[in-house]
């Protein structure tokens, strides 16, 4: 029943600081994703937890036990690689029974364990075929079976879906979560794909430049991003430069041609200062009457239907282009004028970043 604590971990590669004073707790039985752009340190952190890399400072605890000096094979982990590291010269079943055999189980027990684990991950095929004969998704399931076979309760997954095609990726991500949950495992999954992280994790750890920026449930990250970077990097957001106003105890984003009350302002901003308003495309609602607060009359510049969702490009007063995704069966023509409401708690306001806007939201 593994819980993982990362305490004050730092790591440098030459002059590059890969991780700087990272602290993190992964609860027993949870599915956690490390999310961040290339080079943010997420893979380094995973490898430190696995024991492939020693941290320069700090320590990793698994179930309260310090892992200092303990090699990967003694940490009770299963590691799944992006490039699907099955032994190509071994049959599927031998790939899975290899771990138990190395641990000196009898061949009979090892085989039994292998078959039962293949059944657990529902790989339903002739086990005597070789890895090259199966699809990438199945091969990844086999590598998970291999981890389960040595009774690992902690799964460490390094971009496990990265080599698969998108449709397979969607199917596999739900399968991964199902396996982890139904066998009471703890999983740490590294990815650069926010859709992937948000849709399967209990908790997402957003990283950038060697630091943890925010940790939270997918819903929290989506609707309560603590920084402009998270608002922009996780999911999508319209970013609009405004002036911050403060009256009657609420913050107001003043965009010149429009004013919006902002309900999510994680850092205080002085009245009259430059600020940045972030609004997710899903925050917009179409309404008939302009009676309510935070309602704007806007012009639709383009409309595209994707299933039940309307993807709109709209022009806010002051000719500001934004994207909106609205659930509606209505037919909206480009050029038409509509009323949209953005609920207060869906308007995020941040101080204008010191390093500049481009730098703050750059996905690097």
């Amino acid at each position: 029943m593994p819980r993982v604590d990362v305490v004050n971990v730092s790591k440098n590669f030459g002059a590059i600081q890969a991780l700087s004073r990272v602290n993190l707790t992964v609860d027993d039985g949870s599915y956690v994703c490390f999310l961040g752009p290339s080079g943010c340190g997420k893979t380094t952190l995973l490898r430190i937890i696995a024991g492939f890399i020693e941290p320069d400072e700090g320590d990793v605890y698994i179930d309260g036990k310090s892992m200092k000096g303990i090699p990967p094979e003694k940490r009770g982990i299963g590691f799944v690689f992006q490039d699907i590291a099955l032994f190509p010269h071994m049959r599927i079943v031998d790939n899975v029974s290899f771990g138990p055999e190395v641990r000196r189980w009898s061949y009979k027990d090892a085989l039994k364990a292998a078959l039962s684990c293949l059944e657990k991950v529902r790989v339903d095929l002739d086990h005597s075929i070789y890895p090259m004969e199966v699809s990438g998704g199945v091969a990844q399931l086999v590598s998970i079976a291999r981890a389960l076979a040595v009774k690992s309760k902690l799964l460490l997954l390094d971009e496990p879906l990265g080599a698969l095609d998108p449709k397979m990726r969607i199917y596999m991500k739900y399968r991964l979560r199902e396996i982890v949950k139904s066998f009471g495992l703890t999983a740490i999954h590294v990815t650069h794909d926010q859709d992937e992280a948000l849709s399967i994790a209990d908790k997402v750890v957003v990283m950038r430049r060697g630091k943890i920026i925010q940790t939270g449930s997918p819903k929290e990250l989506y609707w309560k991003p603590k920084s402009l970077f998270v608002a922009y990097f996780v999911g999508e957001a319209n970013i609009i430069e405004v002036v911050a106003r403060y009256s009657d105890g609420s913050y107001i984003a003043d965009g010149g041609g429009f004013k919006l009350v902002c309900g999510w302002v994680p850092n205080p901003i002085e009245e009259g200062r430059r600020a940045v308003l972030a609004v997710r495309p899903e925050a917009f609602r179409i309404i008939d009457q302009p009676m309510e607060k935070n309602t704007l009359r806007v012009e639709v510049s383009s409309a595209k239907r994707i299933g039940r969702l309307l993807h709109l490009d709209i022009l806010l007063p002051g000719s500001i282009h934004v994207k909106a995704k609205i659930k509606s069966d209505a037919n909206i023509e480009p050029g038409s004028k509509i009323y949209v409401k953005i609920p207060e708690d869906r308007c995020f306001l941040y101080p204008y970043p010191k390093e500049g806007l481009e730098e703050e939201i750059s996905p690097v």
Partner: protein
Amino acid sequence: MDSFLKVFDIWKFYSGRAILKGVSFEVGKGEYFVVLGPTGAGKTTLLKILAGIVHPDRGEVSIGGRSVIDVPPEERGIGYFPQFFNLFNHMTVWGNVYFPLLVRDVDAFEAEKICREILSLMHLLDRADSYPYELSGGMRQRVALARALATGAELLLLDEPLSQLDAKLSVELRRELKSIAKSLGRTVVHVTNNVEEAVELADRIAVMNDGCIVQIGSYEELRRKPRNLFVAYFLSDANILRVHILDPYNRILGSPTENCFKFKVETLREDILKDKGEVIAYIDAEDIKIDPPTDSGWNVFDAFVEEVLFHRGEYVCILKVCGGAVKLRMKSMDESWVEAGLRVKVGFKASDVHVYDVSEYESIPYREG
């Protein structure tokens, strides 16, 4: 629209196996045409045939009204962006874009002008003096695209041009790509396995599977009138259920063993109805509703919410119906109050169920269970 590119009855065999089985389509001048399909559908082979790198065993390709089947790649007037591109590592960004122009005998003054224009469009002008190894993956991809654009070719052939990038970068570059292609008036054939990418970029999409083009149309057309189960499956988040026809006259389908899972459909194709056997019922995850209306057009069930997963601003609920014998996936924007562990009523309209012959199940590459 005038057809700029015409492709007729292309066949290609590799060691006796048909990779392309009679592919035909036409692309209009200035159109952004996306070929969408899973890995192994034959997309890359098709693009290589258009580029002239692979010769088809049969069929005809014409570009701008001229048959090019015996014309070598460099004389076809195309810009080709292969899936795994190489930049000239010893040349700067500028050199990488400029050099191919010189090779084509563009005069130096003109080449410089084009080069400057394209680099500025691709936001690369300030990196013109950098070498490829000094750039991030996304930047290198831009340089390779700039090079394909700079050739001045009217027809651009792009093989998974955005697949090697970080997810976020890929989405950003996607938007730029379309506006640049449109502003330069280029005709584009873009190959991808990514549905979202296709939706955002394409004027028309050709869905490809197993060496054939299954259907061509705008995304909306494909979504509303999918020709077969594969198209429906590939373009949306689907519940695909293997069920039996329990009562052909009242059009009731359901599980032969679980008495609690029965539902009505609006229409059944004659040929399927005659069989009275197993069929495939397909229900879009977006068409399933919690607390559905009680009128007769709806099929309603008691369900248990197993999980609620987040998907962008939407929610995906995994619902167990019939004590877990059937699992349905529901996608919604509104039901943010639904939590795992709740018991709810769920339903779908009889008119939202699409019924397919059971043989079509084989066309689905990744099947549940």
